[in-house]
Structure formats: C-alpha cells, structure tokens
C-alpha cells in the first residue's frame, strides 16, 4: 500500500482521468460521426448545443485530463522501463503536476476569452 502518499494520488488521478477520458472518447466519436448525415443533418444543431459555455468549460477539464494522463503515463513508462524511475517517482509526479499547470496557462489564455466572447 502507498498509504496515501504521492504514488497513490498519482494513481487515483490517473484512474479518474482515464475513465473520464474513455467515456468522453466514446461520446466524442458518436457526435463527430453525425457528419455522415450531411450539412442539413443533426450535426450543426448538436455542435451548437455543445458550444454552450458549460460544455466549453467541460472541454477545458477534458484537456486538463488529457495532459495529466499523458504526462503521468510517461512517468509510469519511466518507472516500468528504467532503473531509476521508481526511485524518483515522487519528484517525477510533482514534475507532472508542474508541467500540467504550465501547459494549462496558454490553453486557458486561448480558450477562456473565446468562452467569454472577448476573443
């Protein structure tokens, strides 16, 4: 057991983001596949629905989930395939959190004004 230290938090966030992203992926493929019904089909109405601000904020959460899951996945790969990965897993996790935050800044800078309609 990790006894609630960095490794366990890394796992919990990885599992939660992973499940959420997998469910988002299923929904995302279904809604994009509506293009098959053509320009007069349900696609534009569906997309207009998703362009409402709560869903756009949700999309920011999805992006955050992707970035965290990807970077923590690289940490897991380092733990599994290098001799030093397990030893440095805790500082690596803080690196994952730091890099996720760092990447989040330009993403928020780009998307928040779009949502507020001042882009």
């Amino acid at each position: 057991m990790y006894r609630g230290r960095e490794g366990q938090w890394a796992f919990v966030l990885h599992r939660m983001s992973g499940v959420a992203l997998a469910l988002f992926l299923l929904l995302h493929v279904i809604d994009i596949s509506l293009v098959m019904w053509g320009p007069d089909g349900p696609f534009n109405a569906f997309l207009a629905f998703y362009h409402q601000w709560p869903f756009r904020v949700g999309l920011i959460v999805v992006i955050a989930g992707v970035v965290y899951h990807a970077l923590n996945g690289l940490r897991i790969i380092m733990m599994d395939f290098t001799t030093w990965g397990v030893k440095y897993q805790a500082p690596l996790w803080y690196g994952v959190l730091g890099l996720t935050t760092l990447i989040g800044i330009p993403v928020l800078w780009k998307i928040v004004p779009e949502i507020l309609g001042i882009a």
Partner: protein
Amino acid sequence: MARAAAPRTFRDAQATYQTNSELAWWVFMRVSGFLLVFLTFGHLWANNMAFNAGEIDFDYVASRLAQPSVRVYDSFLLLFALLHGVNGLRYSIEDYIQRPQRRVAAKVALFTVAGIVFVLGVMALWTFSFSEMGDAVRALNE
C-alpha cells in the same frame, strides 16, 4: 486488498500475469500510451489551439475529413485511443466490480458499445468523400 499489487517492471509483469495476452496488454498500454501522447496533443493543438473550438461546425469537420492526411491521422488516433481506453475501462471493471455476473455483464456492455463506436468512427472517416459531398452541396445551391 484482495488483488495483487500492479506489476511495476517488465520482469514483474512477466511474473505477475498468468497469460501471455495479459502481458501483451500490459505492453500495449505503454506503447499505445506513448504514441497517444503525440497523437492527442496534435489533435488538441489543431482543434482547440489553432482553431476556436466554439466555432466548429459541419464545414470545418468536412473540410478536415476531406484531407487524406487527417483521415489517416484520425484513424490511428481512433484505433489506439479506443483500444487503450476500452482496455483501461476493462481494468477498472475488474478492479471495482466484484460479483462475477455483474462483471461479465459490464464487460459485454462495454465491448458492445466500443464495437459500435469503432464502426461509427471508421464509417465517418472513410465511407464518404467529403470533397465530392461539398461539390454536390455547392452544385445544389447554384
């Protein structure tokens, strides 16, 4: 905890998993995960950073899917992301659903939905020629 701790190294994984297929999935999660870092970041860059995602409509998606490079890129993304995601959900089902009947039911439901979604995705990517479709729509409007 009833379940053995997850394996931490490749040698660990070899010793932990009873079957070659589970070991193969363990390797697959790492290989596909590594590829997906680049595939998803590229996808997010194109559709959320280089473009205002709030303005995505039929014309935008059709013009993207008319490009062969986007079709090939998105096909790899669809294949790897679905396999990676569905296998991850399978791990979660095995971790949290204890009763055998419910576990089987959850997996059957998951694999059915995943199969339908995969077919829908492949159809959307490859069945129609969007450039021809665009020409046809423009011809109708003339």
